[in-house]
């Protein structure tokens, strides 16, 4: 199968959907001629014109609000938010307006929009351009949240997001834009709420999101070399969350680590770990471990930044402890 970059995969997904449905448009900063600073949307304005690939002033709350109103009146906007760190600026329009409109109107108004943005540290982009803020939106009822972990995932999830009748937030990993993966030529969709078991195993379940999926897979390699067998699961969407696949796995392996690049405290690892602990309690041979980013603003200095996120080594080390039973007795 051909291999394309995650960037190209997103581009294709949007282009295919836009060809099909004229009510879709893209709105954001430097999305047209520049094709975004990450060049993800390059070429779209040439095909669809500036009426559908709309460059905005630097006014995130404003164009987020405009997208909500457009979505309520027959359009299907794709909002481009250049950095996930700017989510804070659009929270009111996203969480007070987009997320609640369908419910508050008793089901009469819909807000079918996609907010595409990104996450991920270790780019030396410092504290205001390196955050992974998916936990904030996952907490708000009415928003769906997708976290693609490869080019294949990015295309399939984006196409599903665009056809969803609700506000969907997609977090792409900034560091993965140039990563290639096999992506079929034929159209496909990845349904929301269906986790992906990337690797089967028997000793421990590694639940990992987005950027951390690769980390988990590499940790599984390390463990395999040492004779331990890790199952790796990518939830793909954290809202809705495919609890069943995760629970089934943990009931088999009896151990789990949840790995995510958001800050650990009050982040998504707590939710997933809690659901496992609640619903597979009887099966657990070790406490469910959580590995998020450190609870510090992301430091600029490479010497500091790299230690703030989980790595294959730290994940493998925690898995070893769990499998050996060291965690059990410590708790």
């Amino acid at each position, binding site marked *: 199968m051909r291999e394309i970059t995650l960037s190209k995969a997103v581009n294709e997904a949007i282009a295919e959907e836009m060809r099909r449905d004229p009510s879709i448009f893209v709105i954001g900063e430097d999305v047209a001629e520049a094709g975004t600073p990450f060049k993800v949307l390059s070429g779209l304005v040439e095909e669809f014109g500036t009426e559908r690939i709309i460059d905005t002033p630097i006014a995130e709350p404003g164009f987020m609000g405009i997208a909500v109103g457009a979505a309520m009146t027959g359009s299907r906007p794709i909002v481009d938010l250049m950095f996930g760190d700017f989510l804070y600026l659009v929270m009111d329009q996203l969480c007070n307006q987009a997320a609640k409109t369908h419910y508050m*109107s008793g089901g009469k108004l819909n807000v079918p929009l996609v907010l595409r943005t990104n996450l991920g540290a270790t780019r030396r982009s410092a504290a205001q351009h390196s955050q992974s803020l998916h936990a904030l939106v996952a907490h708000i009822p009415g928003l769906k949240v997708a976290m693609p972990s490869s080019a294949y995932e990015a295309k399939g999830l984006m196409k599903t997001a665009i056809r969803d009748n609700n506000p969907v937030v997609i977090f792409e990993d900034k560091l993965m834009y140039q990563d290639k993966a096999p992506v079929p030529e034929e159209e496909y969709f990845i349904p929301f709420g269906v986790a992906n078991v990337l690797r089967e195993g028997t000793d421990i379940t590694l639940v990992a999101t987005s950027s951390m999926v690769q980390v988990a897979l590499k940790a599984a390699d390390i463990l395999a070399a040492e004779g331990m067998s890790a199952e790796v699961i990518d939830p793909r969407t954290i809202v809705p969350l495919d609890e069943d696949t995760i629970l089934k796995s943990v009931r088999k392996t009896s151990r789990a680590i949840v790995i995510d690049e958001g800050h650990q405290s009050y982040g998504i690892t707590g939710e997933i770990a809690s659901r496992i602990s609640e619903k597979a309690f009887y099966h657990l041979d070790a406490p469910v471990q959580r590995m998020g980013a450190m609870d510090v603003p992301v430091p600029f200095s490479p010497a500091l930044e790299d230690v703030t996120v989980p790595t294959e080594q730290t994940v493998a080390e925690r898995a070893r402890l769990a499998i050996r039973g060291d965690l059990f007795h410590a708790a």
Partner: protein
Amino acid sequence: MSAAKKANSNRDDYLRMYRQMVRIRAFEDNANQLYLSAKMPGLTHMYSGQEAVAVGICEALTCDDKITSTHRGHGHCVAKGANFKEMFCELLGKEEGYCRGKGGSMHIADQANGNLGANAIVGGSMGIATGAALSARRLGKTDVTVCFFGDGATAQGLMYEVMNMAALWRLPVIYACENNGYSEYTRTDEIAAGSITARAEAFGIESHQVDGQDVLAVNKLATDLVARARKGEGPFFIELMTYRYHGHHVGDINREYYRPKDEEAEWKSNRDPIANFGKWLEDQKIVTNDELVSINKDIKAQAEEAVAYAEKAAYPSVNEVDMHVFASSAA
């Protein structure tokens, strides 16, 4: 009603405007009564005194034209065509309400009549209105959108963000600022520096100030601007000078510490939009006093009937609590 038809205004139009203003007043009198007799959950903000604004503008709109409304939104809702029964049901949290009781006073939406909803975030609908205008233009519709908001909302940055885009993109949106002299318990001059209309003009937006107690003046200006916006000459900004008769909300009874009683008396006795228009209609021999009295009586009866209906109506079933969080998404 079409702009062309409005230009040639006639007895029917006048009477409908009169009736709509009386309907708003009757609605509010009953809503206030419901609150005072502790029959209404929560609290609500009365539109009484500002009727000429909503009616003068909405009578210049077609049913397909859109509006966005505010926390003080009953007037906009009635003026845009809503029924008493569904409105009172909504205020009481009943299943037959416009939003099945889920929205309440601050979130009434009536999308069938083009009302995209009230909003409890001051200024929160400015993006939505602008987006509806963008959507209409992109989808080849001729709808115009009117964004209602108060003088207090001009302090929200969102307004400047979306006015900039509306001006750059010449969107068919009209920003209607209802300057009732106060935001909550604060006089407008204490919270608004400089000139409100100049702020819109600085973005190259044609702006007007009009007497918001004179329904004909409001309607004439609105009819003209709506027609021009429909032709692509928008956006526009209108500052409507008006007054709210009640407190900020129904519970705001003792207000002398921020607003003198004689100021209230002056507006109520000499600048009442309904009384003055009624007098003008009589003076012009368009209607007799008897006719007006009978209109008032009929509407009062309708309102009371709707209240009685709503009081007896059923609450939504408890099962509805987690319905409408997400719209279904047939691909």
